[in-house]
């Protein structure tokens, strides 16, 4: 026990930790940059109108937020093997479950855009 442990033959703990954090940041930073650039590469402009809408109209923006929050909650409920068992389970057994309905909607969407390369 003691600070001498931090510098051992072939390992300078502080320098190593700095470099380690550097790699973690580096990796995620590159991913972040890639994510920022990709849409432009793909020339996706379907995002802009939406942002305009939300800026001009806050209330609808709030509604949107609520909807999105709900959507995320649904996503977590449906997909994550976490504590919300009764619900996850219900979505197996119970056919009237709202989650299932949402799931159906989701499937419909993804069916609309079958081949992601030509839209």
């Amino acid at each position: 026990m003691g600070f001498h442990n931090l510098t051992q033959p072939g390992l300078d703990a502080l320098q190593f930790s700095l470099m380690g954090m550097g790699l973690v940041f580096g990796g995620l930073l590159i991913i972040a940059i890639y994510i920022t650039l990709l849409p432009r590469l793909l020339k996706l402009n379907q995002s802009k109108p939406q942002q305009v809408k939300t800026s001009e109209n806050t209330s609808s923006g709030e509604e949107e937020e609520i909807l999105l929050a709900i959507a995320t909650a649904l996503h977590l409920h449906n997909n994550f093997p976490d504590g919300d068992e009764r619900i996850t389970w219900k979505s197996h057994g119970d056919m009237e479950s709202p989650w299932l309905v949402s799931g159906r909607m989701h499937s419909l969407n993804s069916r609309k855009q079958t081949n992601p390369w030509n839209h």
Partner: protein
Amino acid sequence: MDLLSFYNNSGIAHLEWLNLVMIIIGILFIYLAITKDYEPLLLVPIGFGVIVGNIPPIEGMPLSVYAEGSVFYYLYLGVMKGIYPPLIFLGIGAMTDFSTMLSNPKLILLGAAAQIGVFLTFIGSLFLGFTPEQAGAIGIIGGADGPTAIFLSSMLAPELLGPIAIAAYSYMALVPVIQPPIMYLFTTKKERIIHMKPPRQVSKKEKIIFPIVAFLICGLIAPGSMTLLGMLFFGNLLKESMVTERLANTARNSLIDVVTILLGFSVGASTQAQTFLTGQSILIFILGAASFVVATTGGILFAKIMNLFLKEKINPLLGAAGVSAVPDSARVVHAVGLKEDPTNFLLMHAMAPNVAGVIGSAIAAGVLWSALGKF
């Protein structure tokens, strides 16, 4: 074969009070899982495993996970060889929707910042006299990611796997208890009520390309993270490709369930009091708690630093979600945000640093493994 030998072949004859302590801990895990809903899918298997692992086995009989040739030994091999964690990552990848992260790249950095918990805990463990390998394995508890912690300790310090795994999962379960005070401590009311702009919609194309590119980036920077992240992004590709839905479905249901059952149970069964209740374990639990605090703090403070440079301010609460512990810490952020302002829905935004934190700690694990592992 007289009465005495029968008694000596019973468990009561060899039961020590330390085993009783562990059995009570196991029951406590199950109780918390059922009543408080803390990570039940892990605490129930681990808890029951702890109970099973602390029934004194008969001398020389192949019963415990440590007795070569026993059934539990074979189930535990999946832990010791590091096979279960990547399979769980495969399932997690098949159930994770990265779109919130794709729509808000800035928040990814919060997932990186939280990994400070890993490296400070690493230093702290060295300071307390653990070997570098052990320190690396203990540090990863700060990643708040059970499979990553189990994988790295099976590679670096199998002798500490039990306490590290239990610590990691215990604190992940306790995230709703650990994080809020820190969040209030380091943020002002004014910061907590910051609304985030609703993110743009992400195209299917972006979602499909992401796992491939993200894997290439992480794999080339830290090949040591290849095993975990390869499976995570593979699972995600199965989910997003749209043409392999049935595989993704099996990966995120039957497969992850079976592996979770076996991993949780056998990790629990490896915690025999005689080897588990040591001074080292207590140190590991203290270090683990510290790592969660540091990670949460790191995420929050980095968000505040980012705000110094950003026009569109980030709600610093989101930094706490960088700890991963998916999706609990994101839920905590959402709950705290709602308490301040019932119209502030942070859940979805919190998922970005949350999943980024998973990637971040996997990279950290890869770095620690490649640097500290003996090959």
